[in-house]
């Protein structure tokens, strides 16, 4: 459930549903976004994140529910009257205008006078480091440059919220990483609320103050990146961000410290109490991240150990991903080891010992069934 902040949120989305004919794009979505935060909507293709963003911008209107921006309901308000501005996935740079004219586009209506306009445009372009390209046209710019023009054009209008629709998906990896850094520092410099839509988990983790993970038109979890990564709420969320080892167990009771779950090979574990009621004796799904399983070398010992055999391995330069078969477990465990200690030399079939930390396990809820068609 969304956290309730002390001050009124900048964007309040209240039980929004969106239908296209019988297809349900958004299902009972509620969300609060705080002023000044870098918020990401994360999820796979078709999960509804873009629809939600466009609803905030005003290009789609919800079938039911309310969207309030800075305290005012935005339902029925057209995009040109909302205090939001959007950076489109295709950048939408006007091809018949040069860079300066593009950035000045929204300022024309304000009738600021030529000098003030020029000053603001110059400042906006300097902020995205494109000051020297003012007279160029869209087709003469690279992808990254066009994106920065789109940013400048939106920011020069000093909106309360900047909406970004997968702005980096068209760029290659290296450029994407550079732009991610730039976006983050830009947001800090400008200080306004950014709402980013992305399907790239690492991007969301790196840039955001908080993330909303979406599947099938619903919000699965809203939390800070660390919390989403370390304490995912459901199986889908756990699986979407990074790798995850899934284990099954049985609830055997609860204590003051939390829920006690019995597992096949990892003994009895105590986990934090979940929000939903769990019946004693019910099956539970647990997860542990591959990097929380540690290889033990030579005579090293640890309080909690398992033995296994390397079933498969993949070399990734900095790290090696190992698939380790453990007797009694249905699926092999995934492990990630840095290659500093020789994990890359382990042959398939090697016997290994691994250590685990009982506090690193998370209880994962089932995801609600996805019904997209009414």
């Amino acid at each position: 459930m969304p956290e309730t902040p002390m001050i009124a949120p900048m964007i309040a989305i209240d039980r929004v549903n969106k239908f296209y004919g019988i297809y349900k794009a958004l299902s009972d979505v509620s969300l609060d976004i705080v002023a000044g935060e870098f918020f990401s909507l994360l999820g796979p293709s078709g999960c509804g994140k873009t629809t939600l963003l466009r609803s905030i911008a005003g290009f789609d209107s919800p079938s039911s529910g309310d969207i309030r921006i800075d305290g005012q309901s935005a339902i029925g308000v057209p995009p040109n009257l909302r205090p939001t501005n959007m950076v489109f996935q295709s950048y939408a740079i006007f091809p018949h205008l040069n860079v300066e004219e593009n950035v000045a586009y929204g300022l024309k209506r304000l009738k600021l006078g030529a000098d003030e306009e020029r000053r603001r445009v110059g400042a906006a372009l300097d902020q995205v480091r494109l000051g020297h390209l003012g007279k160029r046209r869209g087709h003469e710019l690279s992808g990254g440059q066009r994106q920065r023009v789109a940013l400048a054009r939106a920011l020069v209008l000093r909106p309360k919220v900047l909406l970004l629709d997968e702005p980096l998906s068209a760029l290659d990896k290296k450029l994407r990483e550079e732009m991610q850094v730039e976006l983050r520092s830009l947001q800090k410099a400008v200080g306004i609320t950014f709402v980013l839509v992305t399907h790239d988990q690492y991007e969301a983790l790196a840039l955001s103050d908080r993330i909303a993970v979406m599947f099938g038109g619903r919000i699965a979890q809203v939390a800070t990146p660390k919390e989403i990564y370390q304490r995912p709420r459901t199986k889908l969320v756990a699986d979407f961000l990074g790798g995850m080892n899934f284990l099954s167990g049985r609830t055997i009771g609860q204590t003051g410290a939390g829920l006690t779950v019995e597992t096949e090979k990892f003994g009895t574990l105590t986990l934090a109490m979940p929000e939903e009621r769990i019946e004693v004796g019910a099956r539970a799904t647990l997860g542990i991240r591959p990097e929380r399983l540690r290889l033990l070398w030579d005579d090293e010992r640890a309080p909690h150990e398992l033995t296994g055999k390397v079933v498969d391995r993949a070399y990734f330069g900095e790290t090696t991903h190992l698939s380790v078969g453990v007797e009694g477990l249905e699926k092999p465990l995934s492990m990630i080891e840095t290659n500093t200690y020789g994990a890359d030399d382990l042959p398939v079939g090697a016997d290994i010992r691994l250590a685990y930390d009982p506090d690193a396990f998370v209880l994962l809820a089932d995801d609600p069934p996805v019904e997209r068609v009414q």
Partner: protein
Amino acid sequence: MAIAASHAPAELAPPEPPRPRWSASEEASGLALISPTLLYAISLLALPILIVFAYSFWSQDYLTIDRALTLQNYRTALFEPMYQDLLGRSLVISLVVSIVTVVISYPIACFISFHGGRHKNLWLFLITVPCWTSYLLRVMSWKVILGYQGVLNTGLMSAGVTDQPIASLLYNSNAVVITLVHSWAAFAILPIFVSLEKIDRSLIEAAHDLGDTKLMSFLRVVLPLSLPGVISALLIVMIPTVGDYVTPKLVGGKDGVMIATAIQAQFGKGANWPLGAALSVTTMVVVSTMAGLTVLALKLVVRRIR
């Protein structure tokens, strides 16, 4: 002219979001916007054709129109030998012209599509430019070429190839066919070109990889996939050609008369509009049938090649 716009952003996600809905409903706006043009087309195209259809069932006595329904005009149009002859010849000419045009234009379209490189549009432009000039002038130039004292004859004679002018070049069906093929040649290229452009080149490479020779890959991959364009080209040439007026009049002489002359006569001195209407309808129906059959035959032939 490049009607070849071959770009198609692929929509991968579930339904493409419809246009913004905060103004009036999309359907109403769309209809409102297209209404002037639609009304124009309906009143000046659809309606007149319906009126022609109506007229074909009436009869005319000098200047008065008798609205009693009758099939007399159709009986005349279909069974009188003169009109049968004209219609038959028009159909044959239109069939021959469309087939010849498509056959000679196909390799050109292939050339531009596969070997045109960056200058495809330039090639296309250069080839279609003659087409966009006055049809009348082009027919005139053929008259000049094919005449008894014309360019071809006097040229051949002064070059010493023949010592008598060839009389059979002008004022017959052959002249009509040659002139019409020349007129339509470049038009036919366009739809074929568009079709060829849409073919994914890796399909041809796959065919080679699976063992086809270049000829086989052409017959089994390129030809079938370009069929829609070929059919388009056939239709674009066949149907308007059957009603051509200028060419038979200028270069057809007695042997190359086509049905359009007869139709026009009913609206001039002949003053028998209902008959003219009936002839028009008959021509349209018959040529559409012929076009349909040709397309069917073509599809069957191509399917055999697999």
